[in-house]
Structures are given as structure tokens and as C-alpha cells.
């Protein structure tokens, strides 16, 4: 097949960092190519160069056999290369219809916006993609994350793209929506659109890609057809080493329940949830997006109030009034969205790390004891092996995985009895992921009660001794280690008998 898009010896530097060096890429019409790599391997940089966000420092690209040098994202779009970013970027207070057409408004005679043509085009588009047409009139911000993602993909699809770049599109989709997305990708590939697909999920590879390439440290580390998608081989290519698997068995005994939830109910969010987490135990919470997992975690952390039911902490009644109150009683929460709920992007690594511990680091009148703070920061940087030159470095200079370690350290520095982790390794490369898993297991060995929310079943299988499955806000099943199988959990999750 003829190549639609090629890149030859593309390189890019940011200051002293070599983000990409001499990368070659060839994409045929109708081909589905997955791009893998650890965070910081250069995937995003490559995508952004293809999409016209940055120019390459050197190297050449062609599109349909002609030189391709987009000067801006708009150039790239006009040439037929569209992209859906991992962080969905859209206009929350405009309607879905308006979101579909911003930047490419159809013009009427006289230069005005052609509303009627726009409406009918959007109607046709949604009908073709089997998306509910009623969505068009709603504000984008009123949709769920998954719906927003599908709208953005619909927008990209509608631009007669020759190449569609998708940056980890399934990380926020439910299983059913993921299926719809894959169906859409197949449909597009059949129409001759070349798909470039970034993912961290190995289980998707065979389903979604014909071929995949692995990037490592800005260079092409390997290229394989999807049939040969052997997990261990890919991980070796990505990390340059064989993966050590976290070993879930053979841990110490579980002590009495530390956190107990008894028929906890918050209307519209979850109902009659009862569960326990023992000291030294890791308990998993699985379910589809929207099943009420995060809402439950926020309740334990005092942010949401249950309307019925009771909680107990260390055997005593526990009714947190606020996050601050919850922390004071020994509950720590690692939120699921690192960027918007976790880090303070303009602060240093050290300030981010101590943000939850400041009251303990002050002298009289609230003056910060900086010596004590530095000591604490140093300790945690060593203990969690955070890769940073100095604690005063910007948090944003760290890779996603190491930012997550800083946030974990922030939780641990509060000296909690119960640790609630919400998607602790989402969007984190496999190497750091395994490291985080080992840390979580070590923490449990040390007696901490850990509740892990994850959308990745393998993660829970590797970590948890027990897994609760939430479906539509209610506990659908509880599995203890030994009885946890992927099939059984999925069956409970989807409500299939």
C-alpha cells in the first residue's frame, strides 16, 4: 500500500533534553499503527510534530508523497492530519454543535456562519457514527468525560482526515464505549484513513492495531506486527529490561478491620455499600466509569456526605466533616486526576510534597520550619526513589510517574492509617508502574489499610487480596484472592449472568 504519511530522521530538542532523535515512521492508507513507549519516550512530541504544534529541528515529512511542513495545527488540519489529545481540549460552555465546528465554521453568502448547513451536517455526522443526535444541543460541559471524548473524535472524523492521531483515547472510556470507539476506528480504516494510536494498554493492541512501534528515549526501539504482540517482549522494548512482576502472594496476616463501611448510601451516586479494609490489607474497587467508585472514595475522604449508613475507623464511629477532618483522623486520598486534582503546577517538588503536612512543619505563629521541611522532603525523595535533581525543581519538570510518586509521598507524609488510591497508575509507564505497585505492597506490609480504585483489572489482580465490584452504585460482587479471575470480575462488572 502507498504511504500516506512518512517521517524520516525527525529530531527535536527542548533545551538540553533530546525529546526525539532520528525517528522514522511510515503509515499506509487504512493502516492502524499503535505507538507505545514509556512516559517521556517521545510519543507526545512525535504526535505534536505530526500535528503541526512544533516544527521538527531536523528531518523531513511527506504527506501523500508531497513534502509536509505544517506551520501550525490549523495547517496540519487543512492538510488532512487531525488529532485528539489525551487531555481533551474543548469548549465547556459552548454547545456540542458549536464545539464540532469552531475553527472551521461553514460560511454563508456574505461571510456569515451558515447555521442551517452546520446543523444538518452535524446531524448526518452523528447519525453515521450512531451517536445520539440530542447531544448536539447540550453544553459540552454537561456531558460525561466519555461523551466528550466521542464528540472530539467525531469532530476529528468529520474533517476528511487522511491521518487521525488518537492519544490514549480509551483511558477514560468505559468498556462499552471503548468497543464503540474501536468499531469507529475500524470503520475509518476501511475508508482509507490512516490511524496512529497511542496507548498504554496492551490488551488493546491486537484489537486496534495492525502494527506497532515502540519508542524509547526518543528513538525507535522496535517495530512488530500486532500478531506478535507478546507482552513481555514489548515491555522489554519499552524499558530495555525484563519486567519484574510485583508478587502479590505471601504477605503478612491481615489484622482487624481498620475501615468499615456499613450500608452507605448517597442517592444517585451509590447505595447500600458495605465493605471493610483490614490493617495490612489491599482491597480493590473495580467497576465501570460512573459506577460510583470515586464518589465512594470521596465520601471516605469527607468530601461527599452520605445520606444514610455509617462508617467506622479503627473500630470507632467515623463521620468526616471535610477532607481536613478526614486527614486529621488518618485517612489519605490520592485523587485520580493528577493534573487537576493533584499537583500544584507552579510549585516545586518540595512544596508539592509537603502541601498536606504544613501544620506539622510550623513553629509558633505559623512560621514554616524550613529545616524540618527540607528534611522531610529529602527523606521521601529517597524512600520513594523520586528522580529529581533538587527538591526546588518545578514539579512539571518530572515525568508523570515521578509526579505521582510525589503525590503518594504527600499522602504518606500525613502518616495515615487508611490510604485510598484512585487510579494510582493511570497514564504511567510500565517501569514506574511496577515500582509503584511494589511500594503499595510494602506499605500494606507495614500495616496500612489500602483501598485501590482501578479501571485496569490486571493491576487489581496484581495488588489486591480482595476485590469489590461496583455496578451502578451498588456492590455487585466481592472476590477474595484465589477466587479472583478476570472473567468472573468482568461478568460481575457488566451484570452478565
Amino acid at each position, binding site marked *: 500500500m502507498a504511504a500516506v504519511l512518512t517521517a524520516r530522521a525527525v529530531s527535536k530538542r527542548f533545551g538540553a533534553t533530546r525529546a526525539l532523535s532520528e525517528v522514522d515512521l511510515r503509515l499506509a492508507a487504512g493502516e492502524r499503527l499503535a505507538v507505545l513507549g514509556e512516559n517521556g519516550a517521545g510519543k507526545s512530541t512525535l504526535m505534536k510534530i505530526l500535528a503541526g*504544534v512544533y516544527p521538527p529541528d531536523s528531518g523531513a515529512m511527506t504527506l501523500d508523497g508531497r513534502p509536509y511542513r505544517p506551520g*501550525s*495545527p*490549523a*495547517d496540519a*488540519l*487543512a492538510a488532512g492530519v487531525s488529532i485528539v*489529545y489525551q487531555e481533551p*481540549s*474543548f*469548549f*465547556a*460552555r*459552548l454547545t456540542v454543535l*458549536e464545539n464540532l*465546528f*469552531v*475553527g*472551521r*465554521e461553514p*460560511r454563508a453568502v456574505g*461571510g*456569515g*456562519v451558515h*447555521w442551517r448547513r452546520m446543523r444538518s451536517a452535524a446531524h448526518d455526522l452523528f447519525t453515521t457514527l*450512531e*451517536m*445520539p443526535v*440530542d*447531544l448536539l444541543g*447540550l*453544553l*459540552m*460541559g*454537561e*456531558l*460525561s*468525560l*466519555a*461523551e466528550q471524548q*466521542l464528540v472530539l473524535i467525531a469532530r476529528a472524523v468529520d474533517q476528511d482526515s487522511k491521518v487521525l492521531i488518537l492519544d490514549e483515547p480509551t483511558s477514560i472510556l*468505559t468498556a*462499552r*464505549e471503548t468497543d*464503540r470507539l474501536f468499531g469507529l476506528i475500524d470503520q475509518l480504516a476501511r475508508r482509507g484513513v490512516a490511524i496512529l494510536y497511542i496507548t498504554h494498554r496492551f490488551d488493546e493492541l491486537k484489537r486496534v492495531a495492525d502494527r506497532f512501534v515502540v519508542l524509547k528515549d526518543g528513538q525507535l526501539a522496535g517495530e512488530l506486527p500486532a500478531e506478535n504482540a507478546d507482552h513481555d517482549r514489548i515491555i522489554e522494548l519499552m524499558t530495555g529490561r525484563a519486567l519484574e512482576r510485583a508478587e502479590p502472594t505471601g504477605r503478612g496476616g491481615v489484622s482487624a478491620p481498620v475501615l468499615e463501611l456499613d450500608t452507605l448510601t448517597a442517592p444517585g451516586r451509590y447505595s447500600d455499600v458495605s465493605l471493610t479494609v483490614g490493617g495490612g490489607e489491599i482491597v480493590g474497587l473495580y467497576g465501570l*466509569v*460512573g459506577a460510583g467508585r*470515586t464518589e465512594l472514595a470521596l465520601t471516605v475522604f469527607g468530601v461527599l456526605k452520605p445520606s444514610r449508613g455509617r462508617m467506622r475507623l479503627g473500630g470507632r464511629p467515623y463521620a468526616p466533616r471535610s477532607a481536613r477532618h478526614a486527614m486529621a483522623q488518618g485517612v489519605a486520598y490520592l485523587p485520580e486526576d493528577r493534573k487537576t486534582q493533584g499537583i500544584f503546577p507552579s510549585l516545586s517538588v518540595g512544596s508539592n510534597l509537603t502541601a498536606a503536612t504544613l501544620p506539622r512543619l510550623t513553629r509558633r505563629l505559623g512560621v514554616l520550619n524550613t529545616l524540618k521541611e527540607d528534611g522531610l522532603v529529602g527523606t521521601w525523595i529517597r524512600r520513594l526513589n523520586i528522580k529529581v535533581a533538587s527538591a526546588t525543581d518545578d514539579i512539571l519538570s518530572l515525568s508523570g510517574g515521578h509526579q505521582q510518586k510525589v503525590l503518594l509521598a504527600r499522602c504518606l507524609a500525613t502518616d495515615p492509617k487508611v490510604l485510598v488510591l484512585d487510579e494510582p497508575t493511570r497514564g504511567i509507564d510500565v517501569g514506574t508502574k511496577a515500582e509503584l505497585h511494589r511500594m503499595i505492597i510494602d506499605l500494606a506490609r507495614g500495616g496500612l489499610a489500602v483501598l485501590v480504585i482501578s479501571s485496569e483489572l490486571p493491576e487489581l489482580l496484581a495488588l489486591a487480596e480482595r476485590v469489590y465490584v461496583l455496578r451502578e452504585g451498588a456492590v455487585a460482587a466481592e472476590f477474595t484472592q484465589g477466587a479472583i479471575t478476570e472473567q468472573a470480575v468482568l461478568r460481575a462488572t457488566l451484570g452478565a449472568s
Partner: protein
Amino acid sequence: MINAVESVEKSTTGRLVGRSGVLRHGLLPLLLAAEIVFFSLASSTFLTTNNLSNVVINSSDLAVIAAGLTLVVLLGGIDVSTGSMLGVIAWVVATLSQHGTAPVLVIGAAVLAGAVLGSLNGGLIAFGRVSPIIATLGTSAIFSTLLFLLWNSTDVFAAPVSPLLGTGRVGGWPLVGVVVLAMFALLSYLSRQRAYGWHVYAIGNDREAARLLGVKTTRVVFVTYLVLGGCVGLAAVIYAGRVGVVQASSGSELTLSAVAAVVVGGTSILGGEGSVLKTLGGLLFVAVLQNGVVLIGVPPLWNGVLVGVAVALAVWLDIATRRGKGRRR
């Protein structure tokens, strides 16, 4: 897509019967009606043609500023230099008129001067990336000083340059109302029917997302402040004719009222949501309030308090009833 269908139902009901929806869209008409009923009961002169046309004339310069300011607020920006900018241009208008300059030239010079001063704000904000509040606070101080220097202890008297931009009436109704409505129609058309206006809304929602879609964000921001400057120029012509004299601090009282008209009208101070026509409602509320309290004998000194309270309440309501951020899943 069961998920999607469910949330369509949820969000549709949320929009139609939700408490916040009613507050956001239904409150202003109610308040406006209550206000008009109250003042017509409290003052026998309120509901006369003469008084109502006074309301229109007295708020016409404010109206033209507020129309332009709406675009800036939709963009996610703000301009607190409009009043002092108007003062400077009004001085120019009055001075030119005194020298017998042709009305067309006076109007042209005023709009041009406004565009120049507006592009000073626009340049600082669009190209210099200075935050709008700081940039316009700074230029506001500069404009005030400039007016003080120009004024040089001499008040400049002026008559309306044209009946259309002054106190001219047909059958008791003020002609300047036509100019105000034409400006609102024009800016409303620009904001809803032209790609430029779409880009204003898009930038107010998410500037970076707009840039990535090929919207020329810097240019749109610059042009919007320039357009507001042009509006202020036109408003200055009306102001000079209406007030009849330009003094050391002329115009400064309009800055807050213009912001009030925009936010009371329902355009979000955070940008991206609202409309030019909504500002017409907010303007009516502010103008009637300012007129009515004088009629019932409240000292004009209290105007500032009333407008200040209106702004604070409107912004509070906007934040408290904000849609489209909460339901993330």
C-alpha cells in the same frame, strides 16, 4: 451508549427545571419587572414618556460601551479603562466641536481615537500577555492623567454634534435610542453570525484549545479590545453632547456601570458564556435603577453603592449557579 442516553435525560431535565437554570435565565426578567412596578408605584413621574426617554438618553453612552465590553468579557477579559478612555476622547470631541469641525469629522476622529487607545490595551493584553485587569488598570491611570493634563484647569463646553447622537426626539422619543439599538444589533450579529464572534466565545472557554484548532487567538483578542475602543469613541461623542461639559474626571463614573450592565445581563465574568443581547437587559436594569432612585429621592451619592452591590451579586450568582463544570462523570 446507554450511558450517553441516560445523561442526555439527566442534563436535559437539569437545564429545563433545575434550580440553577431558572436562576440563571429567569431572575433578571423578574427583577426587572419588580423594579419597574416598584418605581412606578413609588413615583408618579417614573412611567412618563418624558422620564423614560430620559432613561434612554442618560444611559445611551453607557449602552454603547457595555455592548463593546460584552465582547471583551466573553473573551475572558475585562476592561476597567473605559471610563477614563471616554473622558480623554470626550475632551477631544468637545475641543474639536468648539473649533467648528464638521460633525462627520468629529465622529470619525472620536472613533479612530478610541480604536487607537483600545489597541493600546489590546496590544498589551494580546501581544504582551499582560493580564487584562492589570493592563487596563494601568492604562486607566494613564488616561486619567492625560485628561487632567489636557483639561489644564479649563472646562470645555460642548453641544451635541448631531441630533441623532444627542437629545433629539421624534414624538417625544429619543433618536439616540436608534443608535444604541443599531450598535447592539451590529455587535450581536458579529458575535453570533460571524466566525470572529465564534472565536471570541471559543477563546473565552479555552484559549489554548482554540489556538490548537487554528483560531488566530492573538489577533482576535487584539481586535476585540480595538472594537471596544471604537465603541468608547462613539460613546464619547454622545457623552460630550449629553453632559455638555468635559471636566478633569469626566467619564470615570461609567467604568463600573458598564461592567455592571454586562454581568447583571448574565454574561459570565469568567468568559465564554453570555451574549450581547443579554447585556441590553442588564443595561436596562442598571439604567432604570439609577433613574428610579433619584426619582424617589435617594441622594445620587448612593448610586455607587447600588451598582457595586448589583455587580457583586451578579457575579456571585454566576459562580454559584455555574453549569457545565460539575458533572464530570
